[in-house]
């Protein structure tokens, strides 16, 4: 049943030595500390040590009013800030029974999906850089720059957006943004061919990623893995489809699934997901309703006492806000279920028996965002 070995359990002998991968290391993307036990280059045991960028968002939430937690939400996972923003607003709208104009919902979906594309671009390209190819990383950044420009045009920021408000969004989108988004989608579709030629079909890349770091369905169940990492293991689970929120049921999109469960499968799922996101954005732009973008909401909201669990899909997996309100203007408790937290812990199970290089590739393919784990 339980066969996780922490570092202290493994018998120390002369063959086995410890390697501190991080907290400052080129491929831990932030301040993640991976304590590896190695036999030669083979990992015997791995223990991720987290908490280096712990900021205490959950405690902060208990010391501020509901609105003031908004900027925090986009800082939990800084790569999909808009999605977290949207989720928090939707959770509270559900709790308070606030109506949101349809146009606002559409704008939220468009911006969230753009955010998902930018996050996946960064995730994939950083992963490819971990494998050793530096150039695709910068090509990805070139594309990501266009997404950030688009989002900056709407939200005013490039990373920590704080764009959603209770009852809608902060400001309307204009025609220029819609045209720019369509142009960007056309451009990205054209670039995909290059990405596939340069990365996906490259023999070295294939050799590095096939049958490496396999997460089985059973492991995923035991550890609560979600998101692209889960869909790479053959499970068709996406909160956007399984537990639809916002206006997602109105769009026609597929959930890409690969059944191999290896590093390559997770990469392919992310690539396919970007294409699906582009489909969603196009449909949303086509059917964008007119009307206000923000309903009338009191300046400071007073939710009724009660609790709510609201799940949504970020770029890394299923996120959940569990909110307990005692009827005052200050939250009683906000718990954020962050997908990277569960996804990272799987490493203790799948890394032993792999090479260091595979460990790096696996870590990159899970695409963790460390501040999301540390909160």
């Amino acid at each position, binding site marked *: *049943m*339980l066969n*996780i070995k*922490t570092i202290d359990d493994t018998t120390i002998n002369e063959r086995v030595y410890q390697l501190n991968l991080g907290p400052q290391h080129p491929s831990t993307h932030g301040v993640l500390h991976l304590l590896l036990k190695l036999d030669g280059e083979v990992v015997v045991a791995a223990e991720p040590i*987290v*908490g280096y960028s*712990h900021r*205490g968002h*959950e*405690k902060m939430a*208990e*010391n*501020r*009013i509901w609105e003031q937690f908004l900027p925090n939400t986009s800082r939990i996972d800084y790569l999909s800030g808009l999605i977290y923003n949207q989720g928090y607003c939707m959770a509270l709208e*559900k709790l308070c029974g606030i109506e949101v104009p349809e146009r606002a919902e559409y704008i939220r979906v468009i911006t969230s999906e753009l955010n998902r594309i930018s996050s996946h671009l960064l995730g994939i390209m950083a992963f490819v850089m971990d494998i050793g190819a530096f150039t695709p990383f910068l090509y990805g950044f070139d594309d990501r720059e266009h997404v950030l420009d688009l989002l900056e045009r709407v939200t005013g920021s490039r990373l920590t957006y704080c764009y959603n408000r209770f009852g809608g969004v902060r400001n309307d989108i204009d025609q220029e943004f819609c045209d720019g988004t369509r142009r960007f989608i056309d451009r990205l579709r054209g670039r995909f061919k290059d990405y596939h030629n340069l990365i996906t079909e490259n023999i070295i890349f294939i050799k590095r990623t096939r049958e490496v770091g396999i997460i089985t369905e059973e492991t*995923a*169940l*035991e*550890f*609560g893995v979600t998101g692209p990492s*889960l869909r790479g293991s053959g*499970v*068709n*689970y996406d909160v956007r489809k*399984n*537990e639809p929120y916002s206006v997602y049921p109105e769009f026609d999109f597929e959930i890409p699934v690969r059944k191999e469960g290896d590093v390559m499968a997770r990469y392919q799922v992310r690539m396919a997901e970007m294409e699906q996101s582009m489909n969603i954005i196009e449909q949303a732009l086509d059917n964008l309703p007119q009307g206000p973008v923000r309903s009338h909401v009191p300046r400071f909201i007073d939710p009724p006492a*009660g*609790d*709510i*669990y*609201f*799940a949504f899909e970020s770029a890394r997996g*299923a996120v*959940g806000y*569990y909110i*307990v309100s005692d009827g*005052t*203007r*200050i939250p*009683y*408790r906000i*718990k954020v*279920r962050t997908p990277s*937290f*569960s996804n990272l*812990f*799987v490493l203790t*199970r799948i890394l032993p028996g792999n090479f260091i290089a595979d460990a790096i590739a696996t870590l990159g393919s899970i695409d963790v965002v460390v501040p999301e784990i*540390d*909160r």
Partner: protein
Amino acid sequence: MPTEGQKKLLEELKNSLTRALPEGRITSGDYARTGYHLEVRLSDVGMRRTAMVMKDNRFYLETITAVDFPGSFELIYFYSTWHDDICRVIARIQILKDASPYTVSAIYPGAIWLEREIYDFFGIRFLDHPDLRRILNPDNADYFPLLKTFGKTKLTEEIDDILC
């Protein structure tokens, strides 16, 4: 609106939970308002039996959290499924402030970190936990930050007064 399959799943789940937990109170949650379909209220034991039932039904453990209520902690286990018919079950356990609940990490290894996090934030010691250490806070910390008593200074109380 719950679909047919969802109704069936909920019914089956309710039955098996009732069989496994005769002392628990199992109620249907209002999904549209609270986001969960089934709510299980337990006394301070029974979380491992719940976990076993949930695992047999191929549910995954979404997260565990605790809430610091005056006089007691409430441990909350969130189970969800990959099934097309979404079904979220939450199990609430009221425990006393100094109680030590059992771990579910033997059933869901992913709970090792989740329980470490709860220990880290609330100081709840899980029995039989294989590796109960601090996770996010420093190893030598002598505080449990999510307790309502933590960090309450005169200044924060003043700020609270201003805000409300």
